[in-house]
Every structure is written in structure tokens, then in C-alpha cells.
């Protein structure tokens, strides 16, 4: 596994870029979850709901990208103790996303608190929250 970081408060976590969200992978996830919400694969429904003209990514996928960013930094996603997020906006097929975060506190027990986020084109926030990661 990768090395464990030695962070300081204010450190920015290494960013993770998803070049283009794949509509086909939304279909796979819909099948895996048994999620019948048509916004994940049926463009006609997305248009009818006034949500644009591209399938909408599943919220958990967006959270998964942030976990990948945290796990890549911390030396493994099993080090994530807690993550709490709000879904601020939809992510659509073809979107370029960037996941990042900032260290906000470091406990004596090795638990590191972070603000985390996911943004479209690096600027438009689509998910934001906090995470606790154990580095011991």
C-alpha cells in the first residue's frame, strides 16, 4: 500500500480528476443497485423533468470519487472512519469532476478531520462535506 502522510492543518489533499463521467457506467450502477430511477439512463425523462439532456450520475458514485481521493491520500480507503456530505447539484454524463479537500484538525489519536468537496470543472461545487480519516 502507499505511504501514510504526515499532515498539517491547512494542507490541501492531492486532487483526483475524473475526466468525463461515463453514462454507460451509470447503467451498470443502476443494475447493481436495482435503482429504477430513470434519470440515470433515460434522457427523455431527464428532459421531461427539466434537468437537462444528459443522464444524471448516481449520488453514491459522486461520493465514491471523494472516497477514492481520500483513500489515495491516506494510504487506503479503509482508513476513512466517517464521511458526511451534502449533495449540492447533479452530475451529468460527460462532466469533468475534481475531488479535493483540506485538513482542518488533527487529533492526538491520529484522526485527521478534513473538509472535502467535489466540483464540476474544478469550480462548480456538486458535493461538499467533512471526513475523518485515521492515519495510525
Amino acid at each position, binding site marked *: 500500500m502507499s505511504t501514510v502522510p504526515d499532515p498539517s492543518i491547512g494542507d490541501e489533499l492531492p486532487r483526483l480528476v475524473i475526466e468525463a463521467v461515463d453514462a454507460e*457506467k451509470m447503467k451498470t450502477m443502476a443494475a447493481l443497485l436495482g435503482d429504477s430511477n430513470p434519470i440515470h439512463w433515460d434522457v427523455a425523462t431527464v428532459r421531461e423533468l427539466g434537468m437537462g439532456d444528459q443522464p444524471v450520475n448516481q449520488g453514491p*458514485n459522486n461520493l*465514491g470519487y471523494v472516497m477514492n481521493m481520500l483513500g489515495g491520500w491516506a494510504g487506503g480507503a479503509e482508513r476513512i472512519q466517517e*464521511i458526511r456530505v451534502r449533495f449540492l447539484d447533479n452530475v451529468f454524463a460527460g462532466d469533468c469532476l475534481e475531488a479535493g479537500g483540506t485538513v482542518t484538525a488533527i487529533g492526538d489519536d491520529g484522526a485527521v478531520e478534513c473538509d472535502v468537496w467535489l466540483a464540476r470543472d474544478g469550480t462548480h461545487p456538486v458535493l461538499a462535506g467533512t471526513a475523518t480519516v485515521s492515519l495510525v
Partner: protein
Amino acid sequence: MTSMTLTPTTDELESLVGRQFPGGTYAVEPWRVWLTNDVIGAPQRTDGVAHPMFCYYAAMAGLGISIDEMFTLCYASADDGPMFGECDIQQLRPLEIGATYTVRGEITSAVRKQGTRTGTFDIVAFQLEVIAPDGEVSSIVSNSFIFPRRPQ
């Protein structure tokens, strides 16, 4: 064509609080882990540790009703365009690939909101525990869904 479900009264909405889910089990099957890692771009691990998103997947799949049934319970359907609200995942112990977990949980809050742009919507929150074969709680997942409602 799609049509929105009738909006519940506030009494009907509030009566959801405390409703326990049937619960059930969830097996972290290797093929499911592989496909999920592929979808979200996570590394394919060989040490038997599942991605922490499986805390969420196990909780949702093991609560004993489908997502559609969850929507119906909340007086909504997928056609109404329900969305995620907040999600909190505590990974107390990583889930293990190949293990089967027990899930239990209940609805913890149900409130009506009025947005200037979005109109009336309800937020229904619930908490689920994912329990390992040895009886220890591996994960606690707290989620909420946002249900757009038609004007009354």
C-alpha cells in the same frame, strides 16, 4: 408520460418517523465489488477489503425493501425525481469481501420544506446499522432523500 404522486399531509409525513425497516442481509460478493470498483474508478484490491461505499450499498440493499418501495413508503415514486439529501457513513470496521452482513434501521425524521425556486419538498431521513457476522456493528449509515411535491 410521468406524473407526480399525490402529496401526503403533514400528519402522514410525520407518521413515518420511527418506522422500522424489515431489515435483512447483504453479501459482499466479489463480482459486485469488482463491478462497483470499475464504475467509481476505485482500485481492484486483493486483500479482501471492500470499498467503503459498500457500507452504503449494504445498508440500502439490506434494509428489507427496494428503493422503489422506500419511495412508495414516503408517498413518492421514482417518476417524481427524488434526490439525495445528506449522507453520513461511519466505517467502524471495513467490510470484508465474501462476508454476509445483517442490516437493521428506521426512519429518523420527516420534514416539509418550502423553497423559493424548488417549491414544496419533503426530506425523509433514516439510519441503518450494518452488522458483521460476529455481531459487531461495522457501519452506521444515515441518509436522507428529498422528495419534490406537487403544489397543494
